[in-house]
């Protein structure tokens, strides 16, 4: 069971620079760790994150094994109109997760 936490302001004025914060639940297994019996634990990470506003990509990030478990991201965008943000995480073993948040711009 995975879950994502999204923090987007519900309202903003036209031209405001707003901060978007996301937190996803994921182990981000590095692929460099061993069990006590010496077996390598296979890599299992999220590799990419994309944020789109009304279908247009506004932010993209590549993750690596060096990204901490439960990846956290904070970034900014300018509020120009009301609409919907779509968030997408893609990772190893077919991992895919989406979330969305709406904003009202006055």
């Amino acid at each position: 069971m995975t879950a994502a936490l999204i923090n987007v302001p519900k309202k903003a004025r036209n031209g405001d620079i707003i901060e978007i914060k996301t937190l996803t639940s994921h182990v981000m297994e590095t692929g460099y760790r061993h069990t006590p019996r010496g077996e390598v634990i296979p890599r299992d990470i999220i590799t990419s994150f994309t944020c789109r506003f009304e279908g247009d990509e506004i932010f993209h990030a590549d993750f690596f094994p060096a990204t901490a478990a439960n990846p956290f991201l904070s970034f900014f965008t300018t509020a120009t109109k009301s609409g919907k943000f779509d968030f997408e995480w893609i990772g190893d073993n077919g991992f895919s997760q989406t979330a969305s948040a709406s904003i009202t711009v006055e």
Partner: protein
Amino acid sequence: MRRQPVPTRRRFLALAGGTAAIGALPVAISVRPARATPEMMATAIRTVTGGANVKPGKVKLDIPPLVENGNSVPMTVSVASPMTANDYVKSIHVFNEKNPQPNLGNFYLKPSAGRAQVSTRVRLADSQKITAIAKLSDGSFWSTTADVVVTLAACTEDVI
């Protein structure tokens, strides 16, 4: 007649600390078979810049200078940029020297970001130098570095 120096508490602690540091070093190396090197970081940086000149400045890297646990180190990169359609930050790339892989993260921005600033949390396998590079819309590259001391390493620890 020479007097034996009295082993003060301060001297004792200094000696003990020194011995511990020397003793810990070979152990730390032996438990981590795979790790990047400064050369690997340089190669990874060249992949991003294509050999272009990287100038120091414009980029600010906020990361704690001393972290107790390398498993989750908060990091903020910001770039001084007006973020207009003609002058903006295209991407931010963060590198490290001693993790198994030289990359910490790539972040791609649009002029609509308004502010060229990204925060995330990373793993650090050792005390090392972190380099952040920003690619601007005019094709120039700017960078900054920060030194981080890590007490408890991440990435390669064994599962108990």
